[in-house]
């Protein structure tokens, strides 16, 4: 017995499925042509915390800033040093260009170059701060390095592997999202970052307001291996960073703190040795040995980041240790 009949012609099916593909193809053509000519604005894919943060840092480094003090480093530099109170304490504007621990000194050097190009003759002091966690990292994350390079050169973001990603790229949807949609539709941030900042646009606004500093709102239990060491690749990276420093600008280097209750008993001694070695590799003008290598646990949001109270305290200590170098 017949189960079901198809009471339509084959061309009906083809037209129903085929016609909607025409506007899709037109859209893809328009987006790719728009990017190639170039008619579309440059990529600004504020899709998540990392993208937003890197875009804000790049744009801040390229803007006129009037800041003689530049803070560079990983996410501990970003979260542990409050640039605005530091500026108030030193009576000179400081800008925090700390980024992510997934990046390395080459990324910091790139931002430094951008800054000196946009603000010639303005810089007096560069403070380079890394967490011991970052110092033992052998290599940066390739994805984040490529992402930074793409953003610096105004190219599209690094495509992720996968069928959907390939299709989105082919249809010009990545171009649409990164160049148009992200410019007028802020992305909600996930979890604790969402509750603290809200959206990507609000994170950007907060970073600009705080002269580049962020607050880590996501308290997490301390975890990881507390045996820190200075990775050998840092020697070459330090040399590369040094070469990006303009003449006459002083370079100070420091290690950001870890929780007292988390680290090993020899942590301070190890950090002292690492700082001396690293400072030598960098040919730094001074190592900030007055900065504490540990602080009480309650001042931390997680192993690598201080909380807001911790950042306040650490900034005061940093201001005191920088004072003599600005005279």
């Amino acid at each position, binding site marked *: 017995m017949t189960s*079901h009949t198809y009471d339509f012609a084959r061309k009906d099916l083809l037209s129903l499925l085929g016609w909607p593909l025409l506007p899709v193809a037109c859209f893809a053509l328009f987006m790719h042509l728009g990017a190639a000519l170039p008619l579309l604005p440059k990529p600004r894919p504020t899709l998540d915390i990392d993208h937003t943060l890197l875009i804000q840092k790049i744009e801040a480094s390229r803007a006129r800033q009037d800041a003689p003090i530049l803070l560079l480093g990983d996410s501990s530099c970003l979260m542990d040093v409050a640039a605005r109170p530091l500026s108030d304490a030193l009576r000179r504007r400081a800008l925090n260009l700390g980024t992510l621990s997934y990046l390395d000194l080459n990324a910091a050097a790139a931002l430094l170059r951008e800054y000196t190009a946009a603000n010639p003759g303005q810089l007096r002091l560069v403070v380079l701060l890394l967490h011991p966690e970052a110092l033992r990292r052998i290599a940066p994350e390739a994805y984040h390095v490529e992402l930074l390079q793409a953003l610096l050169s105004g190219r599209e973001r690094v495509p992720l592997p996968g069928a959907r990603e390939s299709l989105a790229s082919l249809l010009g*949807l990545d171009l649409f999202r990164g160049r148009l949609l992200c410019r007028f539709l802020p992305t909600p941030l996930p979890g604790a970052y969402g509750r603290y900042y809200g959206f990507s646009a*609000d994170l950007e606004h907060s970073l600009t307001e705080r002269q580049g500093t962020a607050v880590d709102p996501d308290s997490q239990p301390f975890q990881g291996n507390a045996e820190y060491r200075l990775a050998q690749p840092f020697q070459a990276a330090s040399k590369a960073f040094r070469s990006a420093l303009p003449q006459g600008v002083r370079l100070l280097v420091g290690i950001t703190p870890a929780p007292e209750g988390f680290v090993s008993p020899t942590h301070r001694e190890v950090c002292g040795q690492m700082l001396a070695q690293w400072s030598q590799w960098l040919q730094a003008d001074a190592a900030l040995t007055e900065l504490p290598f540990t602080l009480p646990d309650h001042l931390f949001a997680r192993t690598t980041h201080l909380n807001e109270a911790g950042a306040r305290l650490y900034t005061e200590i940093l201001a005191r240790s920088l004072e003599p170098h600005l005279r």
Partner: protein
Amino acid sequence: MLFNSDVFLKFFAAFLLLFWLVRNHLAARNVLVVAASYLFYGWWDWRFLSLLFISSAVDYGVGLALSRTDAPRPRRLWLLLSIALSLSLLGFFKYFDFFAESLAAVLGRLHLPFHPRTLGVILPIGISFYTFQTMSYVIDVYRRQIPATRSFINFLAYVSFFPQLVAGPIERAGHLLPQFEGARSITRPMLEEGLWLMLWGMFKKVVLADNFAPLADLVYQGHTFSGPTVALGTLAFGFQIYCDFSGYSDIARGTARVLGFDIMVNFNLPYAATNVRDFWRRWHISLSRWILDYIFIPLQVQWQRWRFLGTAAALVVTFLASGLWHGAAWNFVLWGLWHGLGLTVHRIVCPTPNAERQTSTSVKTLSWAATMAFVFYGWLLFRARSLEQIVAMTRALGDFSRPAWTTSFVINLLAFAAPLVLMEIWQARARNPLAPLSLPPWARATLQGLLLLAIVLFWENDKVPFIYFQF
């Protein structure tokens, strides 16, 4: 298996091919539907297939037993047996832990320590939907509204039909079962309608609901609230749950339509409702009709000697049951109570449907605004994570401070609400839920192309499950 997943797209493509191959074999088609539906369900957890099968087999058997006797007593016994089994399944998998923990909490407050053994069982997806579907079949056979089916395969197909298996609409046997008994014809208009429903449903889920979700989470996963944040978060959740659930229903209807089947409409512009009764005629229509037919009317008949009080009690009990159907938590009970009381008050204000109609435009507008305030406060009760959060959020309604992210929130809310609102205004004015199909071919193709682009744009690898899967 989720509709909004790559695996479903592959599954459905393969199913369409097999469906075409069996076009000349009615029995084979129904076997294919059952096998595919069991694969669809088992993709989540194959162990619960036995539950689906047992539930179907028992009610199929009870249906046959009911058809073989006219004596009232054994018929009643068969009915009670079936209902008891269905409710036991629901009670065991869905409510055992909830009632045990609630009892322990009450006894704890009375300083009577009680440490119940909770079972910690996983809630089988869609159990509330297919249990209600099999129960309605047995009750309808008992009431002699439909004949019992002789074909076990057809009955299995009716219970497990994959488009509506895990989140409805809760189909009645009188409507769906006969469709498995005869040949179906798939015409061009059916294909057009089905493809449009699938596309629009997917757009509502992937583009709208999944973008409202982080907005609602931003507020409801927080710990501090103010009036504007509660209002915005609740608006976002109201849109999310509507787009999520009606999106699922549209995909289900569209999927069935391209296979030549008809599934009932589950939503009819619910946020255009001008009173609570009107809202329940438009929201989750299949459940509303189910509880009306099988809970409210029998209770109202039973309690009619108490006149209005009997009706009010029937309404409250019915909606308490509806709240509990949604989930084993006190906020769902409160939500049900809220709507039960709202409907009771509405009965006092508008005792007859005529009283609803005889109102001016301005009164209707005010009535709409009041209804939406009522419905959206209900969503606050529904979405809250605890009773403490309900109290905190309700208190916060009097605080008018705004967080820094208000503008970003409003931009997002407007951006994603706009397509839905525009579409529904269009549907309402045209008095046709399929209004886009009346567009000229080029305009329709453009609209469909844009929806397709938006779906690919927001198609995420980490899928957000449909909210109603948990019920």
